[in-house]
């Protein structure tokens, strides 16, 4: 077997185990169907109550979609280590000759699949419940938007995984809180221009801000920052590289401190 074939096989291990766990666990239904649909319907109904126009409703619902897609995809990346932590099988996972990128890539591909499923479901529900379609800007814009979201999710998922390996399962709550804070800052339901000066500057450091801006521009909302896609993808790639290094470093550190063993006890 060629080296590329072996890399592919090892990567497939992480994709397949997420796929098999996803198929058999009821929590999947909640992650992929229940929470995204509940979020979309509750926010959508609120916009109806507030008598927001079609454009403003699309603005807000786009944030809901971004939130759900990023959440589900980054959760899958985190499952590369989280499943093993819950099962207390961490040391057996790290005993195998796999590189951190193979773990992350396999889990992320599953995350992309689930992210696309969540987006499709939310698009159908939005069309049915509110007569609004996220596909209106065209397939190109949708694909670029989704790419930006899953790129952001990869960076977030790797960072959360690094925290889990450094501090154990106690870091779970802190990590999820950090994700929620990021979503708050990137203007999930409002333009970032509404944020106070320093917070708006922080928002400018979050790639998701730019992907939301670029997609919302398709619905007629001019972006606050120039060249949002170029900025978003540049920042996204930089953060992904940094998060990967943090993940790799966390594995090395947990081998030094014995955390890998503690997580299996």
């Amino acid at each position, binding site marked *: 077997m060629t080296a590329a074939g072996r890399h592919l*096989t090892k990567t497939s291990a992480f994709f397949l185990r997420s796929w098999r766990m996803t198929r058999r666990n009821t929590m999947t239904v909640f992650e992929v169907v229940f929470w995204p649909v509940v979020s979309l319907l509750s926010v959508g109904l609120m916009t109806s109550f507030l008598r927001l126009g079609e454009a403003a409703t699309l603005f807000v619902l786009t944030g809901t979609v971004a939130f759900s897609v990023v959440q589900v995809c980054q959760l899958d990346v985190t499952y590369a280590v989280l499943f093993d932590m819950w099962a207390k099988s961490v040391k057996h996972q790290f005993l195998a000759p796999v590189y951190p990128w193979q773990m992350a890539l396999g889990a992320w591909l599953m995350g992309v699949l689930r992210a696309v499923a969540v987006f499709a479901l939310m698009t159908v529900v939005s069309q049915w419940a509110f007569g609004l379609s996220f596909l209106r800007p065209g397939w190109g814009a949708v694909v670029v938007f989704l790419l930006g979201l899953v790129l952001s999710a990869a960076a977030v998922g790797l960072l959360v995984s690094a925290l889990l390996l450094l501090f154990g399962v106690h870091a779970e709550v802190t990590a999820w809180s950090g994700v929620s804070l990021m979503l708050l800052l990137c203007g999930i339901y409002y333009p970032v221009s509404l944020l106070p000066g320093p917070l708006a500057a922080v928002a400018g450091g979050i790639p998701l801000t730019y992907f939301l801006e670029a997609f919302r521009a398709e619905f007629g909302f001019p972006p606050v920052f120039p060249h949002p896609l170029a900025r978003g993808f540049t920042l996204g790639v930089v953060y992904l590289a940094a998060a990967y290094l943090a993940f790799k470093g966390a594995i090395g550190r947990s081998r030094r401190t014995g955390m890998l063993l503690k997580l299996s006890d």
Partner: protein
Amino acid sequence: MNFVATPAPAVEVRDLAKTFQAGWPRRHRQPALRGVSFEVPAGTIFGILGPNGAGKTTLLSILATLLLPDRGQARVLGLDVVRDADRIRERINMAAGGTSFLWSLSVSEVLDIAARSYGLAGRERRPRILGLLQRFGLADHAEIPYNELSTGLKQRLALAKAFVNEPELLILDEPTVGLDPDIAARIRADIAALRRTRRITILLSTHYMREAEQLCDEIVFLRAGAILARGDADSLKRQTLTGDRITMSVEGDTSGLLRLPGVLGGRAEGGRTECVVDDAGKRLPELLRYLIEQGASVSDVRVAEPDLESVFIELTR
């Protein structure tokens, strides 16, 4: 002139040390290994014994590349555990007592994921998994989810998974802990059979002396992170003066017995006299001759060989 090459040891450990640190804000240091050195010849079963907290799991985890040492060097199959960890992982595997896997995966899926993690292609993977299911008696349970398996089946799955890459070195960390005696006996038989048929090197850590005595070619005793004794079961008994035990009913004076050559210790209580000797076959006639010369009458003579349990108790006293 012909030279016969000595096979390289499967494991070489030199002055290996590891200290764990815990606590916040004031960290406390917990030494787990304090300069351990030994070699494991290829193709042998090497036992690592010791009480809880002796450093057995720490030592095995370093050799399995799951933990980095603070000091010293460890080489596995000729490769350094720090620098060549990736290459070592391809060639070793490990099974531990109380191992668990992802709860929803079936037995065959656990093996499939493990085989993929070692880069086995489909052509190679499928027959390997089928072979492991057969060999470890898991074929009838292949589609059962992990969390529905009995403890014995879970442990057999852990062993089967450890063979998925056909390792040259197998690390078994208390593989029979917590199992029913009949299941533990079966696992022991599996290990012995694997050694006979495959000639791989096995590092076995265990609490059970009988298991070590039955399976291991050589044993090290660890206590508080240091090696207390090393050798095969017989030499360990000699090292710890845990000799053969001769008990007999004696009417007469036995006070001179302790001065006889080869008598390591003894006591007399309620008409029964017990002597610990280096070799019962050699010393029993000498003891009997001495007692008869002293005019004592001897009956009900019993001889018992020591087991590793006695060595363990002696070493950890």
